[in-house]
């Protein structure tokens, strides 16, 4: 097992523990009183996410919200995993390409499930049947690009951070790296890429399930 897969499993366990603890706290809340502190941020964030997804899916939003939110939370935890000394899971191309496969399967299965196979075929041949091969290629290439984007961003962040560490003598390197390199390449790019993957998946999934006439 490669270190990336091991750290991916560790990240999943950490995310599960955090989410279970947060869920227990939210269960005990009193709706009459105003929420405070981190719980308020969590409740507000989940509410914003629900509103965001509702805007894309309309009546189908309850089917897709748990899946999309779960992917977003996993990516957000996995992309900042190098802060606690783990290898970033997405800097392994196998894990990144499995995210392409995940996006491909989610889009195709829900397109066939909600739109029914006949209508889905009609959508794919939508402007004219001559464009069917082009549409099929774009169905394959967008998930591939999503996975490769995650891989490239996280790998370049890891490589640049390692280069910084090897460039400077160790006593000097602590301050600039902790102040400049880690916030930019681990927290900033990682969270932006997690949100971008989530947003692209939301958009392509909503394009696959809504009818082209409406």
């Amino acid at each position, binding site marked *: 097992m490669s270190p990336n897969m091991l750290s991916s499993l560790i990240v999943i366990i950490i995310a599960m523990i955090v989410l279970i603890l947060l869920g227990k706290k939210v269960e005990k809340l009193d709706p009459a009183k105003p929420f405070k502190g981190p719980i308020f941020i969590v409740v507000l964030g989940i509410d914003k996410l629900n509103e965001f997804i509702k805007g894309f899916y309309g009546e189908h939003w309850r089917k897709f919200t748990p899946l999309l939110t779960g992917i977003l939370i996993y990516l957000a935890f996995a992309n900042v995993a190098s802060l606690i000394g783990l290898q970033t899971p997405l800097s392994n191309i196998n894990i990144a390409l499995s995210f392409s496969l995940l996006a491909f399967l989610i889009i195709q299965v829900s397109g066939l499930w909600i739109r029914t196979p006949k209508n889905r075929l009609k959508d794919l041949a939508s402007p004219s049947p001559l464009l069917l091969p082009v549409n099929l290629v774009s169905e394959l290439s967008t998930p591939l690009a999503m996975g*490769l984007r995650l891989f490239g*961003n996280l790998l370049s962040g890891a490589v640049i951070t390692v280069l910084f560490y090897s460039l400077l003598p160790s006593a000097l390197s602590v301050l600039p790296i902790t102040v400049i390199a880690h916030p930019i390449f681990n927290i900033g790019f990682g969270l932006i890429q997690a*949100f971008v993957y989530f947003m692209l998946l939301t958009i392509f999934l909503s394009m696959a399930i809504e009818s082209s006439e409406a």
Partner: protein
Amino acid sequence: MFLLAVEYNEFFIQGLAMLGAGIAMIGGLGAGIGQGFAGGKAVEAVGRQPEASGKITTTMLVGQAMAETTGLYSLIIAFVLIFTT
């Protein structure tokens, strides 16, 4: 003499791969231009409509991450050239 030629060829391939990696990163130029364009347009939009700055920033970041893709492809190719030869 023959051994020397083999060694020479080995380093020749490695050096050319490094050169290729450097040339591949010219692709970063396009990504930089695209991201700068998106950032400039976002600044214009905020200047015209300051109350929508939150939405504009989110849209700008997503668009820039999209524009980054081509640069990342060239980066992946450069990494492949460096680490596999």
